[in-house]
């Protein structure tokens, strides 16, 4: 009698909760999806239609002019994709191992100086040398000018990701490390064969963030890359867009002939071109966010 009562109560509240869940998540999804649809349709609208009628859910005066501008020289775009994929892959793989390893060490409760090192890393998020000195140092002493390493190395070790990763590592029971030690495993073996397999969701998260960071980074390319054949995709697109904006900005002050570019639809098309591939990768990352992934390993 008593038992069935709680059951009914439970299912009732569960049902109500489910309704709320679905509604809230659906609304949130709509709010996030609509602008994206507008963006895609904007990228296929003519510049004049956007100017006079604004944006809508469907393309106005359908045209592919903006994409044609981006893909004017298809080889450059393909090359830029290649560069982006290269730096994203290399940076993410090495960065991920580095971050996971470091996070593991600074979350070890028996490691005496973990707070000191945490602070040593954290401090760099508060202070930095400023653009000028960083630039000079990288160029003159590290010789990173026009080198792809300038796009990979500075972003490889992100302290924010390190500290988030630390919370994932901390969630792993200390007992596991101890039992591994008792089994005679060295620190490296403990880390690679015991800790890493348990870090899947954390690794998926941080790996995705690293990849997104590399994929979206145009700033380092702007500072350090000179030759156009080393432009990553985002910077290639960014420079296209900036050209229109910069010319408009200085037109008031300078005696420079200014030509017009389809800036509105171009902005939208750029976003589509740059986002596309990463959206395709997302589902692969998602499969690691499955509830209870740690179960087997903990038991084993």
């Amino acid at each position, binding site marked *: 009698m008593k038992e069935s009562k709680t059951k009914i109560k439970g299912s009732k509240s569960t049902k109500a909760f489910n309704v709320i869940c679905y509604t809230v998540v659906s609304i949130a999804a709509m709010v996030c999806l609509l602008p994206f649809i507008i963006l895609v349709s904007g990228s296929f609208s003519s*510049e*004049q239609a956007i*100017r*006079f009628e604004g944006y809508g859910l469907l393309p106005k005066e359908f045209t592919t002019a903006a994409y044609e501008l981006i893909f*004017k*020289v298809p080889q450059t775009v393909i090359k830029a994709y290649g560069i982006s994929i290269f730096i994203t892959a290399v940076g993410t793989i090495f960065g991920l191992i580095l971050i996971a390893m470091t996070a593991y060490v600074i979350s070890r409760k028996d490691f005496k*100086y973990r*707070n*000191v090192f945490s*602070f*040593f890393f954290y*401090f760099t998020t508060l202070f930095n040398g400023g*653009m*000028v*000195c960083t*630039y*000079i*140092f990288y*160029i*003159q*002493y590290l010789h990173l000018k026009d080198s792809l390493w300038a796009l990979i190395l500075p972003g490889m070790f992100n302290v924010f990701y390190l500290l988030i990763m630390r919370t994932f590592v901390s969630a792993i029971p200390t007992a596991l490390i101890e039992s591994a030690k008792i089994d005679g495993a060295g620190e490296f073996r403990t880390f690679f064969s015991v800790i890493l397999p348990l870090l899947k969701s954390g690794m998926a998260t941080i790996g995705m963030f690293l990849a997104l960071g590399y994929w979206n980074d145009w700033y380092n390319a*702007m*500072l350090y890359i*000179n030759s*156009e054949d080393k432009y990553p995709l985002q*910077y290639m697109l*960014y*420079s296209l*867009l*900036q*050209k229109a*904006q*910069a*010319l*408009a*900005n*200085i*037109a*008031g*002050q*300078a*005696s*420079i*002939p*200014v*030509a*017009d570019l389809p*800036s*509105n639809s171009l902005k939208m098309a750029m976003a589509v071109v740059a986002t596309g591939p990463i959206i395709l990768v997302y589902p692969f990352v998602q499969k690691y966010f499955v509830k209870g992934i740690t179960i087997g390993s903990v038991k084993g």
Partner: protein
Amino acid sequence: MKKNFLKKVLGVALSMTLVAGTLTGCGSGQETKETQEKTETEGGAGALDTSEEVELVMYVVSDRPAGQDAVDENLNKLLKEKLNCTLKINWIGWAEYSNKYPLLYSSGEAFDMAYSATWLNFASLANKGAFKSLDELWPAYAPKNFEKATDAAKMQATIDGHYYCVPTLLSTYNNYGLIYRTDIMEGTDWDGKMETFEDVEKYCDIVKATHPEMEPLDISASGPEWQNVFMFDQGMSYVTKGLNSLLYDPAEEKPQVKAVYDVEGLKGFLEMMTRWNEKGYFSKSALSDTDSGKTANGKAAIKIHNIDSYRDISAQHPEYKFAFSNFVKDIAHLPYTQDCMVISNTSKNPERALAFWDLVTSDQEVYNAFFYGIEGTSYELNDKGQFSITDPDLYTTSAMWAARTDGLNLEQVGTPDDYQTSIDQYESQIVDGKGNEKYTGFVFDTTAVETEVATCNNIYQQYFYPLVLGYTDIDSGLEEFEKQMKVAGIEKIQEEAQRQLDEYIAGLE
């Protein structure tokens, strides 16, 4: 104990960075000083030694055109023969110039020459030691150019007592006014006049009535611009470009520097703008509109700028008809430093660089090869001597705009007929040493008031822009604007400007 250790780690880290910093020098100060001394002692030698072949490196601000290689090759053949040198052009793209351009001079990279301009903060960079002084080099190695440069141009190139750039030899004028559509007026009872604010209002009313889909005035986030038209119409001049809050009247015997809120008739102007706002001549959200191409794309009817913009917009949009009405009564030359060439502190061959510059700005063949590219391939000439660009995607004209020189510069096909007549008219109106022309050599050195200038520019944008567009109440808005400007130190700048202006006038006599 833990805390002490933490302190120590911090200390060690910091001292390490400092040591590394001194080792690396973070900018090669001493080196440049040495090279500077060297060239100064050699500078007086005069005759140019071309026995050794050199590669000159030039930086320009623009995106590299696809067809640049062929143009370079063609030019270098000429240069090899005439000066035993080649030119390598490096490009700072539009996406990066605002960050990278100042960095160019602090990175210690060796290059010879670069484009500079008022909009690239030429004066401020020169003040901070970014360029090589040209006191001896310019007259010695670019004598023809030096001779052609006017006295005013030389004064503008002088910062802190030294020449720091070679200004353009192309005359430009301080004309400013309305670029407006005439084709949309066809079939209306418009009287064709566009000389006063009343005319503008009449024109706008007609646009409103006949073309409701258009905005009569093209105003966007870059600023309202109409305050400039008003100031120039009143005969006022800005103390310096980039500081729009201080003005003077060049017609006065001893001009007094005035703050913008003290200019006569300002209230009447603001009342008119408020009325225009209410009539809907422009958007109530114009200051957030980033679209600056509304006139060029047929969305707006009147754009404010100069005759060169009028020429460009007419050439680019033959489907519309434009006219230009200048609102500046007192025509004078614009500063020649608007476009200029600077020699880098790190230049290894400043003599050859200047010799090259002398050649480009005096020899039509080299000028064409440098500026327009290859005849028949990148540009074509018609029988009137006007040039047209064959394929804008491949090559337009050089981004080294400072090379443009009166007499060498060609007119582009599609230039409106009244362009050259207006220019000639401007030139004929100018009387040396009178009105605005008297002050073209005046350069306001803001070093002493840099902090105040930074703040005042901010206040101007924050409080005055909305006032100009009639978004805020005139009386309380003006009062607040004045109060904020005073707190920001406008009076200190005013004093400094007055002192420098008086000095300038005294120096003329």
